[in-house]
């Protein structure tokens, strides 16, 4: 696991890797911390130069999780070492702390996700369904020695965006295709993805067409158990009518991993009583013109 705290000595470079997904480099020069990353897009794109739509079909089977991530530390000496670092598009951070301690924390990306099941399904009135999606995470980089001062956030994969709302008003979200599986598939765990259980309950008197839903991941925490990442369970209660749905976030490890340890807090720690648009589709009266 790449998550955790790292004390960097002077002129030391730390190389962290999520196999086939992301290489992260952190180096220290005096009080300055240098950070760079490379997204390894080859498995997402045939050309390797452009990102593609995030799907869950990104990995071969039977890969061990431990093989999917790694850490190595390179130590160099000499005052000029830091200026000889490979040209990786470094960002430099001049910090207050004399001995910065870098903390890497998994966090959900900064936008909600529009999750589109490969095959839409209809939920009968009064029925409830539980689906699993695997959300790609961001890496939060903090200076632990300075009261968890946030330096930056790095999305582990490049993601495309979509619009959720009307032509006049709405919000930008990340776009994710999902199988919306109703079972947990052990072979689908990945080092950079968080398994999210989503319960959808249809309290309306009509069938609910779950063609796509807006998953507000800013309320979700990240839990870890045996190198596998989980979020807490999100319950979406559709009451019908105005397209607003009640969101309830459990705030504790899901039933599938009750002993999982909290390693990433939610951005927006609201758990109950939030009515948000979840199923509303884009209105397109003028799209043909």
């Amino acid at each position, binding site marked *: 696991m790449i998550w955790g705290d790292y004390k960097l000595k002077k002129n030391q470079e730390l190389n962290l890797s999520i196999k086939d997904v992301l290489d992260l480099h952190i180096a220290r020069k005096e009080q300055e911390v240098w950070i760079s990353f490379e997204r390894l897009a080859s498995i997402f794109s045939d050309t390797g130069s452009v990102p593609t739509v995030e799907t869950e079909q990104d990995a071969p089977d039977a890969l061990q999780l431990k093989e999917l991530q790694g850490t190595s530390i390179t130590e160099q000496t000499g005052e000029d070492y830091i200026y000889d670092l490979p040209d990786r598009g470094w960002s430099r951070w001049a910090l207050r702390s004399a001995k910065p301690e870098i903390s890497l924390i998994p966090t959900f990306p900064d936008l909600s996700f529009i999750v589109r099941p490969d095959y839409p399904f209809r939920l009968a009135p009064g029925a409830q369904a539980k689906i699993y999606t695997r959300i790609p995470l961001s890496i939060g980089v903090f200076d632990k020695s300075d009261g968890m001062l946030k330096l930056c956030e790095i999305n582990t994969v490049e993601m*495309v*965006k*979509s619009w959720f709302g009307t*032509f006049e008003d709405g919000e930008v979200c990340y776009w994710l295709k999902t199988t919306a599986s109703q079972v947990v598939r052990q072979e689908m765990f990945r080092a950079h993805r968080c398994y999210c259980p989503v319960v959808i309950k249809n309290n309306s008197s009509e069938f609910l067409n779950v063609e796509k839903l807006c998953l507000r991941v800013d309320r979700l925490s990240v839990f870890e158990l045996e190198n596998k990442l989980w979020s807490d369970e999100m319950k979406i209660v559709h009451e019908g009518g105005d397209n607003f749905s009640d969101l309830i976030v459990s705030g504790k490890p899901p039933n599938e991993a009750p002993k999982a340890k909290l390693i990433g807090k939610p951005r927006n720690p609201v758990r109950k009583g939030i009515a948000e648009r979840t199923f509303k589709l884009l209105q397109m009266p003028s*799209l043909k013109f």
Partner: protein
Amino acid sequence: MFSYEIEPDQVIRVILLLVIGLPLLGLLRTYIRKFITDKYSAHYAMLIAKTFFYVGFAILFVMILHELGFRLGPLLGAAGILGVAIGFASQTSVSNIISGFFLIGEKAFVVGDIITINNTTGVVLSIDTMSVKMRAFDNHMVRIPNEMMLKSQVTNITRYPIRRASIKLSVAYKEDLENVRKVIIDVVDKNMFALQEPACMIHFDSFASSSIDMNLRAWCQKEHFIDMVTSLNFEIKRRFDEEGIEIPYPHLSLYTGEKTRAFPISSGKDDTPEMFKTDEKKE
């Protein structure tokens, strides 16, 4: 005979009003502007700050006149008559002022919006009493009288959060259009600025003289418009080259007379029609 004397204490009071009142008005205007910009928007901040300043200035002016011993009743009456006279003499200015009220009330655009008027596009800097001031993208300041703004067609480019770009594409007649369509959709899907929804559309535009013309319509956030159009064009060209999809362009052949052959477009073998070959070449 008219005589008027100013007491020293009157002068002191007027100076105090000026010395304290004007800086205070300026300070309060700055504070109000900053506060409302942070809380609401730059547009409302500008309007409220200006209203506050002008009202405050008018009150200060009246207070100073009062301190100097002027009776305001006759003065206001005279001002009314003067106003009518000035109004007749400066119809354009009055029209601009009244147009300004309509512009503010209508809210077709606000400070910070990007608008196009009469082929000029720029960011609205302020909506003033007489004119709207814009910063064009070549960093020119453009002043447009309010009356003209009211009479002209104004396009507000940044009113809505998402925008659609139309990109015209031409391919050769020999191309498999279904394949072309798949390639274009793939390019849009992978573009980091293009939105997945609203979904892009590809319209068959026309059978042109030497190409089939299509129109790609893709959506993006308003701030990414140029980035999306540029990156899509680059990527479409690259993918068309990779896939061997031809983008036709007009060929121009130059002749210097009927005795000479045309400049060749393709090199290599001699594919000049017989009629264009010179006598020397024929032998």
